[in-house]
């Protein structure tokens, strides 16, 4: 069959030029929303604008923030989402505490994170090499790993044995909480890798057009798998920090974190179809969600209603992304 022209109307539609209004909506909309939340928070609650409250927000943001960095890679590479986060968090939290008496604090910490990374590798191989849908692969791996961890500890709560570790992660360096510092290091490293390294460029290309990427000598399978390994490591780190902070860990300690992380990344304007996005954008999304939640808590909004608001937010962010994509901007 002859195909004289590459005139595909549905593609042409995508190449429409950008309009100034839409650009403002993509670049500045979220900042504007954060300012609105700050003003509303300051007016509605006297507690909001205190340094104690902000440190609280930052600290609770750090644990999820580390996962958001990994999740950003998963979305950008076109891997939809990593649902094994609760398992890798549990892996990090439980093992870093349970192995302390056997290995010592630091080896236990490192091994816990490495094993979480191994879970990520299994998901990554299933997604990248076997070609299983990421939602299914990570859900399956997560369920299995969670089951193993649960049976290892007998389904009970594991307690810490080394209070010094708790003091360290809850401590401050130059007035900044250690958790926040660790998060900052991870975020900056993630940002540099995604924006400046060849790995980051490969990640963007694989998410943007995997066929072209493969035909351009990009090892797309490895790159896809890598995003899940990274998220596994982030989950492990986040879980280990959580475990050390609480000095106790239940197997279900990480449930819900996967959706918080996905919410932040999507609200940050990173497309679920992959190929674009940055760590700072995801963190701005996280900041917005965290501040909004904080304001709601301070104003006594009940938890179910908070969920309702966050749900609406995800739907709105995805709808906006689709609308902009259709105009060829996002």
């Amino acid at each position, binding site marked *: *069959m*002859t195909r*004289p022209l*590459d005139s595909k109307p549905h593609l042409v539609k995508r190449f429409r030029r950008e309009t100034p209004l839409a650009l403002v909506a993509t670049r500045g909309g979220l900042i504007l929303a954060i300012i609105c939340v700050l003003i509303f928070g300051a007016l509605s609650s006297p507690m909001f604008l205190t340094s104690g409250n902000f440190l609280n927000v930052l600290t609770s943001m750090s644990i999820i923030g580390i996962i958001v960095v990994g999740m950003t890679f998963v979305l950008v590479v076109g891997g939809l989402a990593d649902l094994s986060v609760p398992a890798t968090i549990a892996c990090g939290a439980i093992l870093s505490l349970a192995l302390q008496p056997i290995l010592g604090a630091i080896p236990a910490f490192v091994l816990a994170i490495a094993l979480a990374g191994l879970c990520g590798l299994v998901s990554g191989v299933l997604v990248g090499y076997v070609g299983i849908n990421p939602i299914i692969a990570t859900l399956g791996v997560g369920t299995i790993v969670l089951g193993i961890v649960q049976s290892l500890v007998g389904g009970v709560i594991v307690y810490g044995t080394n209070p010094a570790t708790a003091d360290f992660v809850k401590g401050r360096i130059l007035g900044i909480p250690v958790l926040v510092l660790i998060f900052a290091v991870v975020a900056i490293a993630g940002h540099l890798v995604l924006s400046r390294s060849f790995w980051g460029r490969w990640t963007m290309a694989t998410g*943007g057009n995997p066929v*072209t990427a493969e035909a351009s*000598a990009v090892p797309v399978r490895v790159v896809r798998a890598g995003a899940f390994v990274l998220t596994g490591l982030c989950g492990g780190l986040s879980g280990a920090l959580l475990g050390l902070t609480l000095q106790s860990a239940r197997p279900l300690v990480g449930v819900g974190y996967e959706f918080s992380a996905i919410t932040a990344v999507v609200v940050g304007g990173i497309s679920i179809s992959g190929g674009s996005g940055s760590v700072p954008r995801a963190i701005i999304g996280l900041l917005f969600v965290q501040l909004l939640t904080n304001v709601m808590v301070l104003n006594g909004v009940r938890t179910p209603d908070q969920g309702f608001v966050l749900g609406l937010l995800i739907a709105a962010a995805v709808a906006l992304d689709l609308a902009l994509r259709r105009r060829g901007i996002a």
Partner: protein
Amino acid sequence: MSTPIIALRMRGITKTFPGVTALSGVNLTVEFGRIHAIVGENGAGKSTLMKILSGVYQPTSGTTEIAGNEVRMTRPADAMRLGIRMVHQELNLAPDLTVAENVFLGRMPKRWGIVDRARMVSDTRELLAKLGAPIDANSQLGDLPISQQQLVEIAKAYAAEPRIIVLDEPTSSLSEGETMALFAILRRMKAQGVAILYISHRLKEVLEIADDVTVLRDGAMVDSRPAAGITAAGMIRHMVGREVTNVFPKTPATIGAPVLQVEGLSDGRHFRNISLEARRGEILGLTGLIGAGRTELARVLFGLERPIGGRILINGKPVSIGSPADAVRNGIAYVPEDRKAMGIVPAMNIRENITLPILRRISKAGRISGSQDESLAKSYVRDLGISPPEPERRISLLSGGNQQKAVIAKWLSTKPSVLILDEPTRGVDVGAKAEIHRIVGELVAQGMAVIMISSELLEVIGVCDRVLVMRDGESVATLDRADLTEERIMALATGEAAA
């Protein structure tokens, strides 16, 4: 009431796309109860015309009459309502459904809102029997061989009781025996008064089955007449016969030693036993009809598919190419046919697209050297005349020709010794086409070996030093520049004796 004889009359059909005229003033008249063949080279406008007839495209100007009434079709559904059915070359069937479900897809017989399965199956059986197709209505479609799936597709079109049925290359996946069975079916449909449009470049089949023949060339109708008295040679003459002007200036280059040698390469499906040689400073053309296996050959050479037999040698040494990365390491680059699907990452800018295959080379400790990244992109944008000359512009915002130049730039950045270009000028405007030819000329002058896949005979003749003609997955001849004529190539490509 007398039935009208004229099933379809298209008058002055013109279709332009930005920068290209695909059809200009085509007239076509098809009668009920006759098989009307439409022939022409790749790109002659056959498919565009059929897309207009099936409501996919709207003509820029011109009128269409169905059974004497002027109609305006804006959607495929409009054409279906008027009794026009298409049988596509690529099958539009659901492999997981049964034959009967496929035949009645979208219009299954219902009883109290529930699909009347028994009636659907019996109707399908009756239909298949009427067509003389020995297929079980209950078998799952995906289990059938392609040829029988093709018959199901035809049965599906026929079940809708069309007045006009369009078949696009229906025999491309059929054996000779199956083709004969198909022809018997077509004759039966014809006897029932259906108007049949038959698109093919297999001229022998056209001569056998068609009552009327229309030849398209460069978007215009050049001949339309009853098939009686027509010969294959006559059709070829009409398909290619045009003034050959030297629109492709050829830069002289010294031809050197072979860089890439292919010996007896087969992929087990699309091509068999291909041998060729690409030399320094030479443009080797690879031509043939669509489906001859040219692109598949290129994909194997570039490591996107694995061969099942044969050898690939670079500079006389056998190499194993298992991935595009291997190919790049061995100095092979491939500019693909489908630019949008395989050539560009649309969300990235020109710079990021150009340096994609060489990121490792311009990185230190994992970090891309910003200055090298920018200077490389800038120099290629300048050298190839990419317009606008802004490396930071998103590649999807460029015209087709400039996107193509960016894709070529991407591959030049790998410093290849063999550059494979697959239909490099398809869908680009005339100016960009000349520039691409100029660039290719300069590359061979610098000693690169170029393999150019092209279906456009004028381009092949104008640009190439030697031409390998492929037909049905086999290499049928290698012609030197002096022996290149359109008639010769077309005769080899179609398997018909030349005039």
